[in-house]
């Protein structure tokens, strides 16, 4: 039987897990976009937030995007594209500028905010696991985070991964 038909039957739904390790504005998009879309397509989705990804669970999001480490970053400007060299990140105000540019682009292109996608993920019953070790390591408290994440560690994630059809690391 083709896989698609199997998925449409009443068998156990397909499932996906993502390890979320990055907390910058640009890097926050892929996990939330994929999680919300997969949930809308009927998959059981689990997100495991660890290291800098854990900051995406903070009640108040203040995400930034920097040119540093984004060697191929370009911004559309005056009909062309302007390169954003790494060295720009060292200039005062540069991260604020690139963040502002990105937020303007997001708005202009009808792209959802991370707050909105996170809300939609929670609404769609995406299972959210916060990494206990990261919480301890960076001295976050559970009350700093949105309501709802369960705490877990590597073994918790591995158990999820063994039962998921798709496992991603972002």
């Amino acid at each position, binding site marked *: 039987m083709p896989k*698609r038909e199997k*998925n*449409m039957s009443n068998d156990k739904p397909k499932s996906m897990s993502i390890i979320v390790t990055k907390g910058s504005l640009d890097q926050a998009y892929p996990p939330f*976009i994929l999680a*919300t*879309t997969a949930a*809308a*397509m*009927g998959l059981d989705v689990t997100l495991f937030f660890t290291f800098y990804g854990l900051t995406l669970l903070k009640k108040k999001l203040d995400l930034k995007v920097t040119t540093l480490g984004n060697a191929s970053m370009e911004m559309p400007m005056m009909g062309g594209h302007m390169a954003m060299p790494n060295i720009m990140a060292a200039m005062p105000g540069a991260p604020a500028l690139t963040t502002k540019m990105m937020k303007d682009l997001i708005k202009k*292109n*009808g*792209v*959802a905010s991370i707050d909105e996608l996170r809300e*939609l993920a929670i609404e769609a019953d995406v299972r959210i696991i916060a990494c206990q070790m990261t919480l301890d390591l960076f001295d976050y408290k559970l009350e700093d985070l949105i309501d709802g994440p369960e705490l877990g560690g590597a073994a918790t994630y591995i158990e999820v991964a063994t039962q998921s059809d798709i496992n991603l690391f972002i």
Partner: protein
Amino acid sequence: MADETLDAKGLNCPLPILRAKKALNKLEADKTLEILATDPGSVKDFEAFCRTTGNTLIESNQDGDVYSFLIKKTS
């Protein structure tokens, strides 16, 4: 005529799909939902969405910059 219409114009990936899913949830079985969108990526995405969820994509059209999709709730 569709039973319900969803205006997703101006929204980008993945919002048209997410809004459509919400609208489908509210719809009874075998009713139809029309979606209007301006995201060119939504053409392929609604095909994939329907194949995976088991809903039926009855029509997919383009009129200028606006794409329209007619989905029958069959899952």
